[in-house]
């Protein structure tokens, strides 16, 4: 380290080192593990149960319950960004001079000492070879610079200087990704909306926090369909949605999983579904004494007369998960019987267990016979204005990696020396900024081609 550096210089130097990049990446990799082991975004009770009060305090202090948004994790990302920017600025001026030199120069002695140097001799006069060699070199590499020497000639050709920019493209792409992510987290949201068939809403609820968010227009679910395979696994969910703006129907569209609706910066995804409450139900009412059956059609909220004027039955509602002594019996109807003597009892009629109400041992048993299965559609509603930066970053990253990894700046050097009138000595070598083995193989290939001439 040089003496007498000012503090800003020291800071600049700190951020321009690749050592810092390695340490930051190690820390990012190591700390990212934490969030895959410790539950994220759980409730305080969950943490207390799992880890106890002492550990929970540590979790709270370091925001480990939401660690990928914790200040220290974001700080690591910011350090990475500054590191990339400073380091790139540091090196760009050197790289720039290499990529756009005033004049292309080469040092023959450097090539004569290359490890990959190949030599052989041919039984031809040196000058007769110049043309063919030059043509082949310019065809396989690029424009040839040829100089005559006392003993013969040297030729130099190169390609791919610009590929040295590839690394900068990769690093730029990382900055774009982080900018995009930042924009998304400030100006975007991710929310859920459950809509019964026929229902309309303009408000979704932010995932995790359950805060309402206005979408800017209304969505009506006209219809929801689910198709199953023979195995019983779901094959396809489909919602038919209508977008309503300022009270007017704008358009109608089907959405499926993987085929969302995107409108005015809002993305609407099919994410789940569930049973909504049916309107009309047909019940069999069985008189327990003689097993005689009466069928009755009832709407939810409606009250009917029991057979033999025994009393009244009111269908009160529908439960998606009926809990019976700690067991989830699934979907069930809930009703109330009012007997002649004004005694009231509450009954449940689970759809999957038709004999359930019999066990009550009342005068009548109820079985839900037919009803129209209704669903609600589970929509995920997101907005992310940063996504285009992220996608641009993705594309640049792939292009940048491709250039850096598979393309290189290659220079090739051929020297033709006259031995006597009928023979010459040929030397070939090359340099490259990466993939020396590939260069070696390339030289061998060119040698066989040249020997064929």
């Amino acid at each position, binding site marked *: 380290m040089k003496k007498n550096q000012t503090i800003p210089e020291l800071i600049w130097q700190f951020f321009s080192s*690749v*050592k810092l*990049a*390695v340490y930051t*990446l*190690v820390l*990012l*990799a190591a700390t*990212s*593990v934490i*969030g*895959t*082991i410790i539950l*994220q975004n759980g409730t305080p009770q969950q943490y207390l149960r799992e880890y106890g009060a002492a550990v929970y305090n540590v979790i709270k202090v370091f925001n480990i319950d939401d660690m*990928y948004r914790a200040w220290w994790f974001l700080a690591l990302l910011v350090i990475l960004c500054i590191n990339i920017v400073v380091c790139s600025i540091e090196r760009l001026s050197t790289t720039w001079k290499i990529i756009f030199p005033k004049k292309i120069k080469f040092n023959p002695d450097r090539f004569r000492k290359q490890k990959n140097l190949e030599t052989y001799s041919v039984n031809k006069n040196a000058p007769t070879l110049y043309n063919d060699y030059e043509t082949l070199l310019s065809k396989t590499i690029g424009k040839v610079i040829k100089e005559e020497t006392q003993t013969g000639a040297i030729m130099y050709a190169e390609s791919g200087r610009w590929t040295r920019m590839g690394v900068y493209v990769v690093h730029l792409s990382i900055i774009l990704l982080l900018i995009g*992510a930042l924009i998304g987290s400030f100006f975007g949201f*991710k929310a859920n909306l459950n809509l019964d068939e026929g229902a309309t809403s303009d408000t979704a609820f932010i995932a995790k926090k359950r805060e309402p968010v206005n979408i800017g227009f209304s969505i009506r679910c006209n219809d929801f369909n689910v198709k199953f*395979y023979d*195995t019983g*696994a*779901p*094959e*396809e*969910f489909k919602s038919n949605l209508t977008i309503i703006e300022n009270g007017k129907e704008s358009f109608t569209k089907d959405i*499926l*999983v*993987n085929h*969302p609706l995107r409108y005015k910066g809002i*993305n609407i*995804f*099919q*994410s789940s579904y569930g049973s909504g409450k049916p309107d009309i139900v047909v019940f069999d009412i069985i008189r327990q004494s003689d097993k005689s059956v009466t069928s009755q059609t009832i709407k939810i909220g409606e009250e009917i007369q029991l057979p033999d004027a025994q009393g009244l039955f009111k269908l009160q509602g529908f439960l998606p998960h009926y809990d019976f002594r700690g067991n989830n019996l699934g979907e069930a109807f809930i009703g109330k019987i009012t007997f002649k003597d004004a005694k009231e009892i509450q009954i449940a009629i689970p759809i999957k267990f038709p004999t359930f109400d019999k066990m009550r041992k009342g005068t009548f048993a109820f079985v839900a016979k037919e009803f129209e299965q209704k669903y609600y559609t589970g929509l*995920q*509603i*997101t907005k*992310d204005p940063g*996504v285009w930066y*992220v*996608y641009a970053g*993705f594309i640049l*990253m*792939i292009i940048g*990696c*491709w250039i850096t*990894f*598979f393309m290189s700046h290659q220079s090739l050097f051929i020297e033709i020396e006259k031995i006597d009138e009928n023979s010459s000595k040929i030397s070939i070598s090359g340099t490259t900024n990466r*993939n*020396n*083995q590939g260069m070696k*193989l390339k030289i061998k290939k060119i040698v066989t081609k040249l020997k064929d001439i």
Partner: protein
Amino acid sequence: MNSSLALSLATFIYGLSSVFYIGSFAFKKQILAKPGFIVLVIGFLSNTAGIIIRWIESHQMGYGYAPFSNMYESLVFFSWAIAVLYIFVELKYKENIIGMFATPLIFLAIAYASLSPDISSKISPLIPALKSNWLIAHVITCFLGYAGFALAFGFSIIYFVKSKNSDAASIFAKLPSWDLIDELTYQMVVFGFLFLTIGIITGAVWANSAWGTYWSWDPKETWSLITWFIYAIFLHLRMMRGWHGKNLAWVSIIGFMAVMFTYFGVNFLLSGLHSYG
């Protein structure tokens, strides 16, 4: 011919190929590596046929999906990817003994798929979220990436088998020089890194088209990012800090452990969105 027959055959042939390669090293008979290569190529053809036939079978059963959708299929494709990459390396670099460090990996992946009782080879229909062309691109690129890392891992092991200057008479002398191993390991990491990058990106694009978020810190996503960081560290250490040889080989080995954890550990130990490899 059905797919499970073709794939069982491929497993057996890959096993045979490993035996040839290991034999050629153990008995110092380079001649044995030649049939090893031919057998490997036959195994590879059988593996390819198995994948194609399975694709057709899924259509005949009426589900019609590309066979890259569950743990079994991903392992079969993993073998295929390591095989195709290794065949390319051997043809390009004309080094055959290193097959000893590649063919066992090819064999183990597909053998694990066929033999493990936890992995079902049944063709079953896809859940709606998996029906996407992005899924196909995602799985193919991820596994090409993993294949690159697997070979980098195999080649890294050579550093610990062969000392820097083994004398010509020892059986290790037939192994490539440290310079060449370094080059090979690096090329494999580079290949893996590029494809893992594309794999993570196609996964993100797919997630964005299925759930509306390109990144949700799901354990599998996070672990693939951790793996990606480790190989980025590898590249920077090699480029900038001049790391070579055993030190760098350790980074590649740690990287491959992360790949294995991303692939299996996350499924068996952590919970998340990904139902398979």
